[in-house]
């Protein structure tokens, strides 16, 4: 362990990569090993990333030269406090969701276990690599790994999943290509691909329209990938038709990692000076975010199916983070970063709960949820905790990030954003109390086939989700409250130090 610790930044990516390869091979040779390889790989990475976060708290920034080459020539990994934190969250969520969905995966893909787990772990590898890398082009390659595996994980679902997956692929490819083109513009002007190196060369090009274009292209690409409001059209279908096991990792992580990448690009590549002061984009972006929040909430109100409603909640949440970030004052940026963390765990918890419900009753229409509190008390309790957190009720972590965002909005004098946030909290309250009310007060619909389309198990057989799923769900719910309690520590010890002093 001692002599490996300098290699931690590489290990967090290499371990899951090798685990994915072994998983895939095991799918052909000994199928029982697949899950163990995948779980072991993700768990090791979770431990390593925790160790990395601990050491980065002392050392500020850890640099790792891949291939032993110095910065502008080779590829550099750059771990600071911020992405150390994001890495821990990624592996925590991926590991938890993997354990929770062991049984659903085994039932849906009995013959293709190796393939599914390998795609899953590769997806996580791509995301974590994007977060850790310090090279703009390497980020593109890893982005494509996580996107390709993501398209596949979504496309294997039922009903309209292949079509939704194909549309996601079109949008995702446009997004990734625009990002690549933006990097190409940067390369053409600076001749470098290393993020820090570009940032140090950039002041010479502050006036150049090519830089502005590069910035716009990169950002548009990332906005497509993170489903910011006018570019969100691919998300609801893609997310609501995919299998629970894949959505449990895709929904919490994809959009948040993209937002982190946006933060990384603006801070480390384009420098805060350029992105905030010279681009005059802040106002536009915040208004876009406001639109995202309001439209996401309104669309969510119109849905009658649980998973589909949640996808629109995600769109609104993306608006929170983008808006908070582009407000550009310290408070709001802190809120945005904190919300990446919180929202990832909240989304995990709520999708795990939804997954448990769907697994047990084979449907997610609001009609099907009647009387569920009596049948599945623990899952629904966890669901309620996640819902409270999404609404922003104090002991849970959702409250704190929202509080930072709102005070940031007030400090910036941007009341539109504040109003949008409050409106969205209100809508979330309506949404979730409606579900809780259906689940708690309405009697269970006993008529078998009363909902003819779903051939779920008869009413009496519905009971609590399997133990593994339940344990993970509870862990996620508890971590929501724990995150809420330790918010102060996270902000003062990590986030405050991670945001550049220019803001």
């Amino acid at each position, binding site marked *: 362990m001692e*002599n490996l610790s300098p*290699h931690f930044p*590489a290990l967090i990516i*290499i371990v899951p*990569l*090798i685990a994915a*390869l*072994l998983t*895939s*091979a095991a*799918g*052909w*040779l000994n199928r029982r090993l697949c899950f163990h390889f995948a779980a072991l790989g993700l768990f090791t990475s979770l431990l390593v990333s925790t160790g990395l976060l601990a050491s980065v708290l002392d050392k500020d920034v850890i640099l*790792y*030269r*891949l*291939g*032993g*080459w110095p910065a*502008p*020539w*080779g*590829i550099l990994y750059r771990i600071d406090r911020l992405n150390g934190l994001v890495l821990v969250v990624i592996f925590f969520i991926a590991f938890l969701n993997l354990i929770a969905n062991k049984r659903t995966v085994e039932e849906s*893909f009995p*013959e*293709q276990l190796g*393939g*599914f787990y*390998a*795609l899953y772990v*590769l997806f996580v*590898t791509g995301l974590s*690599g994007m977060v850790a890398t310090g*090279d703009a*082009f*390497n980020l593109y*390659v*890893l982005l*494509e*790994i996580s996107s*390709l*595996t993501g*398209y*596949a994980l979504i*496309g*294997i679902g039922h009903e309209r999943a*292949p079509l939704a997956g194909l549309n996601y692929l079109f949008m995702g490819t446009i997004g990734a290509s625009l990002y690549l083109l933006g990097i190409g*513009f940067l390369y*053409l*002007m*600076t*001749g*470098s*691909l290393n993020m820090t190196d570009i940032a140090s*060369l950039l002041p010479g090009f502050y006036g*150049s*329209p*090519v830089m502005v*274009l590069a910035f*716009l292209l990169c950002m548009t690409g990332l906005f497509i990938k993170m489903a910011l409001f006018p570019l969100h059209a691919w998300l609801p279908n893609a997310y609501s038709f995919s299998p629970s096991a894949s959505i449990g990792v895709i929904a919490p992580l994809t959009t948040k990692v993209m937002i982190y990448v946006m933060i990384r690009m603006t801070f480390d590549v384009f420098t805060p000076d350029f992105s905030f002061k010279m681009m005059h984009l802040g106002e536009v972006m915040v208004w876009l975010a406001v639109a995202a929040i309001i439209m996401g909430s309104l669309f969510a109100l119109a849905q009658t199916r649980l998973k589909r409603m949640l996808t629109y909640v995600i769109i609104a949440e993306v608006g929170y983070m983008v808006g908070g970030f582009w407000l550009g004052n310290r408070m709001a940026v802190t809120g945005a970063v904190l919300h990446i963390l919180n929202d990832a765990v909240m989304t995990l918890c709520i999708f795990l709960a939804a997954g448990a419900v769907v697994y047990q009753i084979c449907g997610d229409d609001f009609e099907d949820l009647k009387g569920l509190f009596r049948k599945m008390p623990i899952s629904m309790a966890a669901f309620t905790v996640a819902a409270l957190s999404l609404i922003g009720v104090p002991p849970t972590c959702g409250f704190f990030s929202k509080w930072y965002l709102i005070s940031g909005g007030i400090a910036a004098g941007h009341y539109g954003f504040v109003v949008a946030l409050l409106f969205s909290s209100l809508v979330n309250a309506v949404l979730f109390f409606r579900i809780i009310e259906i689940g708690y007060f309405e009697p269970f619909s006993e008529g078998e086939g009363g909902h003819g389309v779903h051939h779920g198990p008869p009413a009496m057989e519905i009971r609590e989700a399997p133990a593994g799923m339940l344990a993970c769900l509870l862990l996620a719910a508890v971590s929501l409250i724990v995150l809420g309690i330790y918010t102060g520590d996270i902000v003062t010890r990590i986030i405050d130090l991670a945001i550049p002093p220019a803001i």
Partner: protein
Amino acid sequence: MRIIGLLIVIAFGSLLRYGVFFFPEWGDPASPPSLHVSPHYIEEAIAETAVPNLVTAVLADYRGYDTMFETTVIFAAGLACFMLLRVLQRQVPECRLYRHIPTGITLRIEKGGKLPTESGSFERIDSNWVPHDLIIKSTSRFITPFLQIFALYVIAHGHHSPGGGFQGGVILGAAVIMYAISYDLRRSIQRIGEQATAVLGSAGVLIYAGTGALCMVLGAAFLDYGALAGLLGVDPVMARSHGMLIVEIGVGIAVSAVMVWIYYNLSSAGRHDEGL
């Protein structure tokens, strides 16, 4: 949709056109990409890695980490096609078709009928008219050995001439795909099974990642082939060259196997019964 599309495209195009005004001239030796990072590669690569093909040197060494994930992307695509398309539930077809090779007559055997054994005189076919195409078969029989030799040459000679693992791997995969096209898919799968392609695909990437991890175990950074000097018995610069050869071989294996795997799944929509 058309008009909206046209508007978006025109806006996008004119934005880019505007940006082009401020680009450095094409082919300008004084433009930033030619001055900032690349001179180091051009001037030092041969001293540092002993590989005269600079593209290979940068690909497999300076930016070898990118290339590892590039191979992983291909592997992920193979996995994705497999997961999306493969139909593993075997259904027994309504009827089976056989061809009596000496006469060329097609036999149709309904469910329950006695099936002939596949041998020199009977072969199973999928649709009721699979041509016995002399032209394609003889051409592919003529070309395949050249293709395979050429593929190995391209993989192995990537240090000194254009080429490398990806190109060679694709050519090698194409040889197998050509075999599948000129005969049929089932015969190709008998020679190189699905399991073999899948396992070889992951093994190829594993060779790459394993080489990197070995360097790490030996105390250097990940993918720092210089650390292999002791194992290979050469000086660190030469070790880099040899390390690149090892990973190129891994890339070649992975790419060729995955190309064949993707072809198997795509051409038969995952049922693995019908060739072209």
